[in-house]
């Protein structure tokens, strides 16, 4: 901010805010190092099998890293709140989209699975997957004449 004080162009509308915030290089380096460490942690974490936990840890670290980049590298910490609002808002819309699309597609997966089984067996001309599977399997065992 000190750098802006001798800027004559800002004299008439400057209420203590210069044009843009200047982030000290030292702070940037610290953030950069933290980001690299977090990258190392996220790779290292994959060598422990935590089941579903792995992806949550990976995502949590990614969110932390992203926040660091946005807050410090992208100056959001000092920027107008509205810019941050746009940023967070756009992510919220992606989340909304993911939530609806994922919920819906997981709801109709059984229809797809059933179709795949029967279509692999019979060109998809069947309704009750299990019944058909059992029938076909039984039929093949009893009916198939020996090849030679």
């Amino acid at each position, binding site marked *: 901010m000190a750098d802006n004080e001798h800027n004559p162009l800002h004299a008439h*509308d400057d*209420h203590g805010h210069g044009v843009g915030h200047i982030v000290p290089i030292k702070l940037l380096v610290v953030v950069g190092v933290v980001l690299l460490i977090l990258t190392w942690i996220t790779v290292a974490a994959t060598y422990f099998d935590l089941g579903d936990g792995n992806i949550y840890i990976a995502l949590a670290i990614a969110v932390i890293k992203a926040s660091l980049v946005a807050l410090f590298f992208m100056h959001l910490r000092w920027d*107008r*709140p*509205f810019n941050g*609002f746009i940023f967070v*808002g*756009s992510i919220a*819309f992606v989340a*909304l*989209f993911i939530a*609806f*699309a994922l*919920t*819906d*597609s997981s*709801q*109709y997966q059984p*229809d*797809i699975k059933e179709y795949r089984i029967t279509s692999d067996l019979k060109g998809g001309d069947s309704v009750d997957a299990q019944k058909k599977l059992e029938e076909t399997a039984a039929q093949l065992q009893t009916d198939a004449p020996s090849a030679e």
Partner: protein
Amino acid sequence: MSAIDTQPQTPVVVDNYLNHTKGVLSWALTLDHKRIGVMYTISVLLSFFLGGMFALLVRTELIAPGEGFLTQDQYNQAFSLHGAIMVFLVIIPSVPAALGNFIMPIMLGAKDVAFPRLNLFSYYLWVFGAIFFVVAMFTGSLDTGWTFYTPYSIDTDSAMSGVIPALTGAFILGFSSIFTGMNFIVTIHRLRPPGMTWFRMPLFLWAIYATALIQVLATPVLGITLLLLIMERAFGIGIFNPALGGDPVLYQHFFWFYSHPAVYIMILPGMGIISELIAVHSHKHICGYKFIAFSSVAIAIFGFLVWGHHMFVSGQSPLLNAIFSAITFSVSIPSAVKMFNWLATLYKGSISLNTPMLYALSFMFIFAIGGLTGLHLGTLATDVHLHDTYFVVAHFHYVMMGSALIAMIGGLHHWWPKITGKMYNENLGRLGCILVFVGFNTTFLPQFVLGSQGMPRRYHDYSNFLPEQVELYATYHMWSSIGSYIMAVGFFLTAGYLIHSLFAGRRAPANPWGGRSLEWQCASPPPYDNFAVTPSVGDCYDFSVLEWDEKEQGYRINEEARRKQAYPGEVADRSGAEKLDGD
């Protein structure tokens, strides 16, 4: 002269944006938002003509059952191109990019949009996208419908070779739309002059702002959808193609995540225009300014949450159907609010039945039908029957064509004197409006009955049904086609007298209707830089400061009255503007 709002304007403006510089290049490379707006308007109207021709082909084919003069493939191309051109090339850019570009900065009191170069770039993106559509039209054509549903659109055997050009065109047009939206948001946030607070902005600007939000947040998803579809068709990536393990319903989620909000890109600016028209032409303060302003933003946000109502019978799960149906109804509330507020504005007004106002009243009539039939389609039980029938066709034409485009044409008449500096023939204008109104309703009212009686959309021929059904459909289709011809006559008449006015029209006064927002305070046509001095802003719906000037045949501001009505922020107050910035 810095006498923007103090003295009656002399109608002869020597230096205006039209003659500020000369030559084709001075237009082609202009950064002036007004010229870009004019170029958009001309381009959009030409596309409207093209899309309209396809509509007439479709209607003529359907006038009677049986094989008409189009083959099945030709018919499929006709309705696909009609839809794609009307949606992507006409309605979406019509109000924001064409009228909005011209009016918005002046209304706001800015000299230009925030990024003039980006603005010109958007226009050329539009042209570029339009070229791709023309390519799609002439080489191989396009028969997928404007929705490009998979897997039909990736089925190489049947979907024609125009699909990739059309997708590319729509992709490019999407970016044109995004950049326009970005430009407008930044302009409204950062270029408001002193005194122009958020709640002094004309409602048209609120509508444009809400629209721009949707353009910025929804259109990128269209971009990625089309990109995925192009890749799917060109390389077979399998995400949307069931033959490769993909999921066509997922495509529909992608598509409607953009295309439902896009409906509000179309209708919201139209609503904004109507708010202006109703207030100005009844010379009465708009009723419930804040309700209307917030309802625009509410529609924009709710609009993102309801896309699934296009997919009630598409194989979407019942759970999502129920959720989407419930949220869908929430959108109807802000629309109803606007409707009632317009009515209240008319109450005890001084209603001038001139052409723009007739369009505004037509809008209210048509939008009432369009909105109320939306209830049938948002309701799960009834939508199952009505989906993909002519009921839907009629409904969205009532909203997209009858409302959005009628508003656009009303707005065009409203601002025509400002844009061109010429007055059109008022009587022909009224006649044109009545023809369009009658033609429109004759075309689309029968389609509601057609649809509820079971006539499916996108049918080249309806002679395969049971005889009594064919007979019934034929009657309604005939009426519908007749209506489309009446409408065409109305539009040609309108085009005729508007073009005529350019050459022989009476010179327009600065403020022919008695509008109070800032664009009526600069000359007609506006000078190159809009305002020599940053204008001062009052309540844009306070008409009490205006008086009729017989000599000008227009209205002028009564200085004395204005001083009496002066608001605290009327005086240039920079710090006040900063504080009221709103973000």
